[in-house]
Every structure is written in C-alpha cells, then in structure tokens.
C-alpha cells in the first residue's frame, strides 16, 4: 500500500479527492483531518504569497475576492520553481481571462506593473553612467550611440492609466486616476524600484534601444509612432533614473 507522490499531490490540491488509503494516524485509523493540514498549508502559503506579490490587486479586489482568486490561480498555476519571489507570472493573463472581472479591464496591466516592480527589485546590480558622459557627445555622434540599460529597466505599455491606478492605491493623497492611457518605465535607483510615466512614444524609443537600435534609429521609430516625440525629455528620464549603464559610440 504505497502512497505515490502523484496521488498525494492530487488529493492535496483537490479536497474533493479522497485521502490516500495508506495515510493513517498512530492507531492505524484513516488520516482524515490530519491530511487536511497539508491541504491547508499549501493553500494558505500560496495565497499569502499572492497577497504579498500583488498588494495593489489585493487592495482593488478586497481580501475576500483576492483569497478566492488566489485559490483558483494556485490550483491552475502552481509554482513551477521554488523561487517564490517570481511566483505569479501568469496572474495578469489569468485576471484578464476571468469573465466576472471583465468590467475591470485594467487589472491585468496593474498586475503586470506589480510583476515588473518585483523583477526590478531582484534584478542584477549595475552602475549607471555619469550624465556628463552623454552630454559631452556631439549630436551626430549621439545619434550613432547605442545604450546599455540596467537589468532592472522594463517598459510596460498600457491603454489604461496604470501608473495612476497603482499610485492611487499605494500613496496617501494621490490624485484620482485620469481617463488616459499610460506607458510606464520601471527602473531601480540603488535598491528601490521606481515606476514613472513615459512621454508619448517613449516606450517605442526605449524598446527599440533594448532591441539594439542606436539612439538615432530608435528616434526614427518613435517619431513614426508620434511625430511630437520628445527625445530630450525621455533621455533625461533614463539618465535621472540611473537606467543607462553603458555607451557604445560608433565612429
């Protein structure tokens, strides 16, 4: 009467399944409620992990709804590694797939922002360049330069006021979110991740840089998306956020 871990796991994750036969108490009676300790431990620990990973989503939904969603999520997507710091990768898409949450279309992007902040927190350290290093370049050389960005840097595009929603739920006295779309830049100065709203087409420009384009090539792509793209302001944002870690100057 050997209890296989597949059988144990199935019964642990589905309370509708019977407790495996070979699990007993010290008087050889069926384990019953004793087995429920494991059912409970797993559900509670993963639910708590979801609460601490997505505090803004939990606040927007309320504790009870978050508990319920986490209970469904943890059974559909149990962790795929012991690194709980990265648990919840599929949560944005999961939220967007829930019929009863359709009226809260922004939840997925808010969850994406929380994931990005967590990734930034654990990203590799990198020393930013001194801002003067860029300022010293003549304009034609600047356009031929490629930028290395810190591992913490991420760009999130959203049709929702995702930054404003995040801020409204994390900062006392923050303004009510306006009805606009917001692209967000996530960076990290020393240890604390910082989200900031990107200017129009800023996301196009930074994503082009990340794909290996020069500043000039990326500028063409950004200008194609929005001819009013403000290169100076977006570049300054990267510099001030410690996001640029290296320059590759051609010619």
């Amino acid at each position, binding site marked *: 009467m050997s*209890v296989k871990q597949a059988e144990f796991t199935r019964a642990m994750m589905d309370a509708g399944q019977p407790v495996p036969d*070979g699990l007993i108490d010290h008087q050889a009676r069926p384990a*019953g*409620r004793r087995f429920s300790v494991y059912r409970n431990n797993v559900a509670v620990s993963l639910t708590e992990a979801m609460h601490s990973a997505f505090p803004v989503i939990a606040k927007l939904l309320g504790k009870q709804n978050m508990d319920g969603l986490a209970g469904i999520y943890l059974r559909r997507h149990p*962790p795929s590694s012991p*690194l709980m710091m990265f648990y919840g990768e599929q949560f944005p898409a999961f939220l967007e797939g829930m019929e009863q949450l359709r009226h809260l279309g922004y939840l997925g992007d808010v969850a994406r922002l929380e994931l990005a902040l967590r990734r930034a927190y*654990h990203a590799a350290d990198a020393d930013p360049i001194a801002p003067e290093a860029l300022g010293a370049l003549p304009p034609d050389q600047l356009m031929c330069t490629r930028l290395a960005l810190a591992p913490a840097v991420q760009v999130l595009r959203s049709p929702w006021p995702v930054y404003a929603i995040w801020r409204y739920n994390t900062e006392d006295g923050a303004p009510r979110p306006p009805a606009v779309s917001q692209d967000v830049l996530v960076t990290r100065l020393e240890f604390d991740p910082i989200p900031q709203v990107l200017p129009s087409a800023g996301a196009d420009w930074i994503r082009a840089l990340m794909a290996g384009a020069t500043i000039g090539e990326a500028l063409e792509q950004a200008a194609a998306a929005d001819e009013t793209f403000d290169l100076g302001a977006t570049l300054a944002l990267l510099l001030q956020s410690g996001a640029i870690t290296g320059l590759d100057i051609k010619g």
Partner: protein
Amino acid sequence: MLDTAAHNRLPAAPGVGYKPQHFAQITADPGRVKWLEIHAENYMGDGGRPLAQLRHLSERFAISVHGVGLSIGGEDPLDADHLARLKHLVGWLNPASFSEHLAWSTHDSHFYNDLLPLPYTVASLQRICDHIDELQDTIGRRMLLENPSSYLVFAESTWSEPEFLAEISRRTGCGLLLDVNNVFVSATNLDFSPQGYIDAFPLDKVGEVHLGGHDEDEDDHGHPLLIDSHGRAVVDPVWALLDYTLAKSGSRPVLIEWDNDVPDWPVLEAEAARAATALERIPA
C-alpha cells in the same frame, strides 16, 4: 567568493532566522544573537537589496543557509537548475553551514511551498541517500538534514524516524539538524515520548538545533494535533525538551525560527536570550 573565513562554523550559541525588517536592529545591536540563518530560496535573485544585506551580514555573523525547496525526498530527480542555484549561493557566500529537510515539496515540476511527508522504507531511503550524495557532490560540502513535523503516518513505513535519519547519516556522511519543536509536535500528534525520540537520536551527528512555535488543533477524534507554524513563541515544554537534549548532546548552535507573524526585534532577541541561558547550563 566572500571572505567569511572568520565565520566558517556556527558557534554553539543562539542564532535567529533572519528577517529583513530586523536588519537595522541586528546591525546596531544583535544582543545575545551570535549567528543568523537565511532561507536559501530568498537569496536566489540576481541582485538588489536582499543580496546586499546578506553580503553585509556575512561580514559580521556566521551564516547558516537553510534550503526549503530542493525536495530531497521527491520521487522525481532533483531539479538541476535548483542544484545549480544552490551551488552558486553556497560558492559565493561560503556559509558556515548548509541544511535541508527530510521532506519533498516538488512533484511533476510543480513546487508546493510546503514540507511534505515521506514513508520510511528501503525504497525511500535509497532515493533520499542518492539525492543527498548528489547535493553534497554538487556543493562540495557536507549538509545537515532536518527531522520533520509529522501529522500522520505512512502505513508502509518500516523504520522509525530516528533510525531512518541515523542510517541516512551513516550512508551519506551528512550531519543532522535536530528540530526540537518538530519532535514535540510529532510526539504529541502521534502519541510517542519526545524524550524517547531524543534518546534514540544519533546526537553525535547533530550540527544544529532548531526551536520554533506551533499552533494547536485537533484531529477527527479529538486528539491534539499540533501544527508547526513558526508563528509564535516557543512553549515551555519545548524549552524543557531543549534542556533534555542539550544535557545529552552537549552545547550546540541553537536557532529560533519565527517566520510568520514575525515579532518586533526585542521579542525575538528575548527568545534567543532564553536559548543562551539554556546553553549556559551545559558544560562546554
């Protein structure tokens, strides 16, 4: 590799499970706390504050790395990626000790974030020893294996837990981590004598002792069911069992684990001070 040569073994003194919210107080005045334990998996990011704090703490304290995710008792092969991460962490930090659990937590590539129980049989013994050999070969050092908290029994088990752990230690050369609270929890839940368990335990193999708090519940028949929650103070009968253990084993590094509802630093430090008092009663 960090230069941690000054802290290359755990002192026979109190340590605590490190929580980031205590960083400022620990570095300002650790009180009676002489060493720290971290959960390996919380320091497997690429950088940022967790690793910076750990680097800083390792200059001042002996560090014990306690893994909670390798699934040594798993039926599946060990996760090669996770072994590589452990090797990297232990290689970089050069900690005073590395320990893991007699348990499993991963099956079919899913990690369940809990320490799940094992039958004590010839087959599970072989599998666990193979995994410990693989781990010790990978990280290039001897590990300590911790006894679990038990809530139930496998009908198929043919070994007692102390005998099973002694045999694993004999075959693999690993040391043991004796969690005295786990002994008390299991003994209460399964109606055996905790002192008898300690008497049967290979105390000469014990490199570290754990203490923690537990919750109280009951089973379907109204029998007490203690749950290893690490969410409150160590209870008096567990302190008494520590005294009993140390009187037989001699001084050992003693760790206070408090992982949930983490208290303010003075409360945790007071638990460590109580462990210091228990250690002072033991001839060195």
